[in-house]
């Protein structure tokens, strides 16, 4: 098992191998992603029962919660990919980390926007300084910081390393930020604005949500594969195998 993992890791270091294998893997992520998201959306929007307090407006949860979960785990993945680059100097890891940043930020943004839209009918306002909203906003700021830093560096290597160091510092800080915001919130505001807790959700509301979360993870994987493949082609554009690939495509 360990040997197999090690072999996979070493192969992953080869951009060419990744490009070829990911072409075969891509449909196995993309098609289930579409299926899960279609089933989850239709089930969630049309068949799940309406909430007894919030009516139909709660249905935005089927986009809001998966996006929020993805935004958080994407940050961790970005930091881990960055650490792999810092420690073992594996170029693929740097490209994956760079591919994740804008996608994670987009999920974070989607979570904030859907949260605002959800907040209007349920809380009567677009934005409140609720602990979860605030820590999500700060996560978006962390993404912005990493992306701005990556853009500002003039070489590939420093850009990847600087982004990796910052995302690791951010990863250590995320729990601290999260708990301090929660602590701050309980002091400044009474906890009237609790969202429906997931564990207390009814089964027929929860199942489509779980389907959507799986669908979002698959979508995320698909997007990462696509962006990393693009990045492989761009970085290896002077290599023979890419030139051959382009020629074959052109002849077709």
């Amino acid at each position, binding site marked *: 098992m360990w040997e197999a993992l090690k072999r996979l890791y070493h192969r992953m270091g080869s951009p060419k191998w990744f490009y070829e294998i990911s072409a075969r893997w891509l449909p196995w992520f993309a098609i289930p992603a579409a299926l899960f998201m279609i089933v989850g959306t239709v089930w969630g929007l049309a068949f799940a029962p309406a909430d007894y307090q919030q009516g139909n407006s709660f249905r935005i949860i089927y986009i809001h919660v998966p996006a929020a979960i993805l935004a958080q785990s994407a940050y961790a993945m970005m930091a881990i990919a960055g650490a792999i680059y810092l420690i073992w100097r594996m170029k693929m890891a740097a490209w994956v980390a760079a591919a994740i940043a804008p996608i994670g930020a987009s999920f974070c943004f989607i979570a904030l926007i859907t949260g605002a839209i959800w907040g209007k009918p349920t809380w009567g306002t677009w934005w409140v300084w609720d602990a979860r909203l605030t820590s999500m906003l700060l996560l978006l700021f962390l993404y*912005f910081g990493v992306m*701005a830093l990556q853009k*500002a560096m*003039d*070489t590939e290597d420093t850009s990847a390393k600087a982004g990796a*160091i*910052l995302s*690791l510092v951010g990863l250590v800080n995320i729990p601290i930020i999260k708990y301090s*915001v929660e602590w701050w919130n309980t*002091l400044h505001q009474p906890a009237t604005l609790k969202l429906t807790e997931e564990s207390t959700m009814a089964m027929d509301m929860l199942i489509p949500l779980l389907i959507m979360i799986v669908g979002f993870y698959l979508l995320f994987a698909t997007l990462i594969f696509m962006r990393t493949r693009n990045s492989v082609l761009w970085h290896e554009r002077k290599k023979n195998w890419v030139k051959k690939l382009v020629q074959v495509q052109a002849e077709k």
Partner: protein
Amino acid sequence: MSLVTATIKRDLVIAARNPGEWLNPLMFFLMVLALFPLAVDPDPKFLAKIAAGVVWVAALLATLLSLDALFKADVEDGTLEQWLASGESLYAMALGKVFVHWCISGLPLTLVAPLLALMMNLPDDAYGALFFSLLLGTPILSLLGAVGAALTAGVRSGGLLLSLVILPLYIPILIFGASAVYHAGIEMEYAGQLGFLASFLCISMTLTPFAVAGALKLNLSR
């Protein structure tokens, strides 16, 4: 004398001969504080309510502005290469540089803040909390900020980038610092907040020098 103590001494002498280095953040601190009564409301009761937060925000911004220059000169004139070539641990070097930065930015801010808080009509009971929260909090601001300063040292117009990168990381310190002062003002217990700040200080003192050292090395491969 080791390289670290020599650098600390050199930087302190430079700061003593260029008073602007430590005076400018102080003046900035004063000016930002003056903006709030002008822009929001000069009513003493209102000021007393927002004083804790405003003083902390102003101290944070003043520290942030002074950070930009922390490693810039050393990167540009080749001192950084000499540090690396000397074999001295970059970890100790980073701690030394942060210590000097705190001496010329955080420490004066801490000493002056109670005086300026008078102008903001801070409640009488809050002065001790203000002093101690800044005393514990400003070194953390310098430590975390040093990571950003090291990352952006070689970047043109790195100042704004530095703020973007570092501000989100400052949030917990701002929350606990301001809340210690606020709670002292309404005669509540604030030892817990100071305890949190002290533990953050311990964590950041042990961990951030690694990140600073790693980020400094990036400036060589440029």
